[in-house]
């Protein structure tokens, strides 16, 4: 019944590594439910996807993925504290207005949060800006006038925000396409994936 889409995004594999078998997960901005299907198969993870786009909601139902149509800008009101092992947001954080609010909410509802986003500081993006144009790339595929993204930030920016909000970076993996980048990722990685926790204080 479960049919995985052909092009599994490379960040799925990293996310799956961080999910223990049988975990309860919540996937924010879950699209057609492909990550949840992947995690169900790879990790027997159970949970729900959140989507605001009704076409995506219908696609999830078609894929037999539990999905709730909720606007993330409203936060996660109604969800209980610590209800999930992991709250995941794969390549959607840059499209949410209420960045700080949603990060706080993810760590309220989840024991840990997993966040991936396109790194605006990627060297090709810097070159593009230097040449006088907003970057368009695999990780930022839209033009400036039609992008759904509303927040543009680098890995360094994100880590600064985490520090300010008392969010602990438990693990970080960065990629240029499907190549893992360990040296100067803020410059050489196009996509970053973080495993975040609450500060102990």
């Amino acid at each position, binding site marked *: 019944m479960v049919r995985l889409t052909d092009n599994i995004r490379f960040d799925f594999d990293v996310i799956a590594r961080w999910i223990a078998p049988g975990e309860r997960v919540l996937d924010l901005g879950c699209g057609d439910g492909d990550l949840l299907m992947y995690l169900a198969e790879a990790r027997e993870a159970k949970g729900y996807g959140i989507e605001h786009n009704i076409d995506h909601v219908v696609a*999830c*139902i078609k894929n037999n993925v539990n999905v*709730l149509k909720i606007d993330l800008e409203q936060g996660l009101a109604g969800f209980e504290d610590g209800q999930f092992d992991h709250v995941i947001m794969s390549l959607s954080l840059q499209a949410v207005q209420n960045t700080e609010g949603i990060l706080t909410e993810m760590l309220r509802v989840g024991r840990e949060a997993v966040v991936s986003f396109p790194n605006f500081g990627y060297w090709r993006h810097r070159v593009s800006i230097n040449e006088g144009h907003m970057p368009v790339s695999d990780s930022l595929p839209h033009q400036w006038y039609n992008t759904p993204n509303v927040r543009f930030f680098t890995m360094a920016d994100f880590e600064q925000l985490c520090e300010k909000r008392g969010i602990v970076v438990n693990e970080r993996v960065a990629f240029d396409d499907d190549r893992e980048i360990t040296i100067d990722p803020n410059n050489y990685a196009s996509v970053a994936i973080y495993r975040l926790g609450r500060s102990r204080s």
Partner: protein
Amino acid sequence: MTSSGSVGVVEPRRARFDQPLALRSGGLLPQYELVYETYGTLNAAHSNAVLVCHALSGSHHVAGIYADGLNNLGWWDNLVGPGKPLDTDKFFVIGVNNLGGCYGSTGSMSLNPASGKPWGADFPFVTVEDWVDAQAQLASQLGIEQFAAVLGGSLGGMQALAWTLRHPARVRHGMIIAAAPKLSAQNIAFNEVARQAILSDPDFHGGHYYEHGVVPVRGLRLARMIGHITYLSDDQMAEKFGRRLRHQGPQYHYGVEFEIESYLRHQGDKFATYFDANTYLLATKALDYFDPAFEYDGDLAAAFATARAKFFVASFTTDWRFSPERSRELVFALMHNRCEVSYAELDCAAGHDSFLLDDPHYHAALAAYFDNIEV
């Protein structure tokens, strides 16, 4: 949606039950009959049955037409049929008129065996749970141990919800649309005004109007007019009628002037010709009493602790009678219990009535969900 067929000409059937039914009100129905219709074919494993529960003024006539009245289309015909979202090529679909109804099942118009006269106002109060228990008896008689799904909108959604709580082993999917886990004070208030309209009609005769050969037409009309105001959204009413007048300029009388007045009177008049006042009273009370969390100190999550079904919940953005907020309460209570649930909140202009219409996203979501139900 994709093109699809009709179930064609259908015929209601009647099931008789001689085992008494204990009612929540404390009453006992010694025997009763339920009128129902079926569409599609029950498979060999008896695993493809879907029960469609009707709302306040609905009936067992969910889909198709009657041979003697070609205009009498089932109330959810756009959903049920071959190739439609609730596909009768796959599922065996059942519609049943609830106890206390006025479309042939035992109700106020039936003869009270004790008096030999119509029950009238003496028909016992029936609740959503009583309806569900009677439906379960019908299922057993039809050889259906477990429904693939129980589906309903509005008051019908409450029955689907009650099924998953009262008979958790007998329903695999609960599909609850434009409903609420209980009525708000405002909902009850509207129902009470509708009831008072009927109760205060001089032709009501304490509910025994059948013996007087009259019908409390004025009360029924008013009740329906009030209902219709709550079924439509403010925006849709503005769009459909606005302040349009029937004549050029104001006439300064109490006859019909605004189009909305004409619409409400028409709906009220029509309703009073076919619906029974006692049924209306009973059904609104069933709505008011429904509150599965009541026995759990108002804790809805606790009420769902025994639920085993998988759920589909849908609401409509412009529905202010049972707003999306009420459906979300339900979804969060289900999630608390780790129930599987999908929730579609649909952008439809038509208010509460949207659940009977065929918005493309709405029907696509239903079709996708039904498609994944294994039979």
